[in-house]
């Protein structure tokens, strides 16, 4: 299957053997999906970056005018800065909460679930296969002023007046996002735990580590990649979440995605929306980078 090199093969054989090398075949086969993703993701993102550097109004000849004005506005207007900070803040908090809550359950499934392991994984993944929109809607039904939680508490007489602040605040947004992204956090941690060589844990115990010390010195550092992966895969999409802030956040819980959507929609200021999008990505990117660096530092300290 290799390429004929040198003078060995006859001319005829060479003709019959215009075969691609292994590497070239692999690349050729990967090309269609790769090209698709580049065409429909990279090109549009480049277009948005370009758009973000244009002015809202074209010049007299109808040409686009290059401008930094959108960025100046995003990075000076307290409204946008506040939204950016809030969105990234929420996403970091959500990521940390989900990961902290997910670690024990991933640990449980990896080490203690025995023959029921597959069932547990199925149980964990089933909600993930239900529509995100419907899950958020369920939360809205649960948290509403006359919703499930309040009404059941009133009905059972545990409270006399309904809670006011269940819905439409940042706490509600964090709760719902943490719930929605739970699976994303469990799976990477679970995978890293399953791959952990158990004899290492036995060795640590054998060498005198207690359960806690062993966890800090062996288990956690060796599953660090899973934890960091989980943080990333929760943090980045939640920072740009659109549905939850609209349905659950209300006025006090809106996030940057709502503002971006407004610029592309009602406000009809696409360049500003584009600049907001790019700024969001950059901010999340920096936050992600910071977490990566911190994780590496923490990993070194644990040793």
């Amino acid at each position, binding site marked *: 299957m290799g390429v004929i090199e040198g003078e060995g093969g006859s001319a005829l054989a060479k003709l019959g053997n215009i075969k691609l090398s*292994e*590497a*070239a075949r*692999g*690349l050729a*086969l*990967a*090309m269609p*999906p*790769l090209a*698709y*993703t580049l065409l*429909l*993701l990279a090109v*549009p993102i480049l*277009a*948005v970056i370009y758009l973000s550097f244009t002015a809202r109004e074209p010049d007299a000849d109808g040409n686009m005018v290059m401008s930094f004005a959108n960025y100046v506005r995003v990075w000076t207007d307290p409204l946008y800065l506040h939204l950016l900070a809030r969105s990234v803040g929420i996403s970091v908090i959500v990521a940390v909460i989900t990961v902290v*809550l997910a670690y*024990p*359950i991933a640990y*449980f499934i990896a*080490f*203690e679930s025995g023959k029921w392991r597959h069932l547990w994984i199925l*149980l*964990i*993944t*089933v909600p993930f*296969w*239900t*529509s995100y*929109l*419907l*899950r958020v*809607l*369920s939360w809205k*039904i*649960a948290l*509403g002023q006359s919703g*499930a939680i*309040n*009404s059941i508490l009133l009905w059972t007489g545990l409270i006399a007046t309904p809670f006011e602040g269940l819905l439409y605040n940042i706490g509600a947004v964090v709760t719902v996002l943490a*719930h929605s992204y*739970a699976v994303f956090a469990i799976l990477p941690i679970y995978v890293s735990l399953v791959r952990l060589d158990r004899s290492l844990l036995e060795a640590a115990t054998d060498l005198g580590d207690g*359960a806690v010390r062993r966890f800090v010195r062996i288990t956690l550092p060796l599953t660090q990649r899973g934890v960091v992966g989980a943080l*990333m*895969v929760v943090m*980045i*999409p939640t920072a*740009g*979440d*659109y*549905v939850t802030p609209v*349905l659950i956040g209300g006025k006090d819980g809106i996030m940057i*995605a709502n503002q*971006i*959507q407004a610029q*592309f929609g009602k406000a009809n200021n*696409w360049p500003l929306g584009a600049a907001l*999008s790019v700024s*969001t990505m950059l901010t999340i990117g920096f936050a992600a980078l910071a977490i990566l660096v911190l994780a590496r530092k923490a990993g070194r300290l644990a040793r």
Partner: protein
Amino acid sequence: MMAGAKNRSVLAAYAVAYIVFLYLPVVLLPLFSFNQSITPSFPLTGFTTDWYLALADEPEMHNALINSLKVAATTSVFATLLGACAARAFTRYKFRAKPAAEGIIMTPLFLPEILIGLSMLVVILWLGFELSLVTVVMGHVLVCLPYCVTVLISSFDGFDVTLEEASTDLGEGALGTLWRVILPIVMPGLISSLIVSFTISLDEFVLAFFLSGDEATLPVYIWGQLRFAAKLPIVMALGSLMLVASIGLLIISEIVRRRGERRLKPSGMDTP
């Protein structure tokens, strides 16, 4: 060995509590969809199937359903085809650009959907295309691709290259080998991938919201109905049906995958 008996039961209790937390909100939807009252609150006022029956009189919903099925079916085929190329390339061949290619194909998994949707919207409108179900499919294929690739890689990974060599050795050409050996063996993975991408596409809202134009898919239709409090029970009935459909599809995909795995355990060595 891993933990004391006490720690273990604490962990188990936590796991159960976690699952309850995971499922509780989701259960509310079907629960209230059978409740007579329009507002979803306790105490329940009485059992009814009216809301489900009312779905029959929502022509808009029917259109949305048909749209969603069209989009999901097309998406699943294209995403699985592209995913199969990628998975085969990643499991069968070594090439220098592999990590980069994998990274790029997986990116949509990490990006906020609103950014993907809006970026595509910008380009589509710039190029002068109309928004339609086609543009929704384009977006859905993009976000389904990472899932298909993941499912297919795990299915292709156990595939033993010598089976292909054996087929060639026994006289088959490339096409014969594909048809008689490769396809039958990876079929469970392909079916899994089709179902997974079908489900994701059926449930996907944000991209559909930005890219669908006038032709709503089911989630977009539901989003539109949320403004009307009176429609909530019908939406809950519809949502419950979608939950059941998604979970049913997931279970089918899981069964197919397991069966395939059991049937095609890589021809291992004998333990002496």
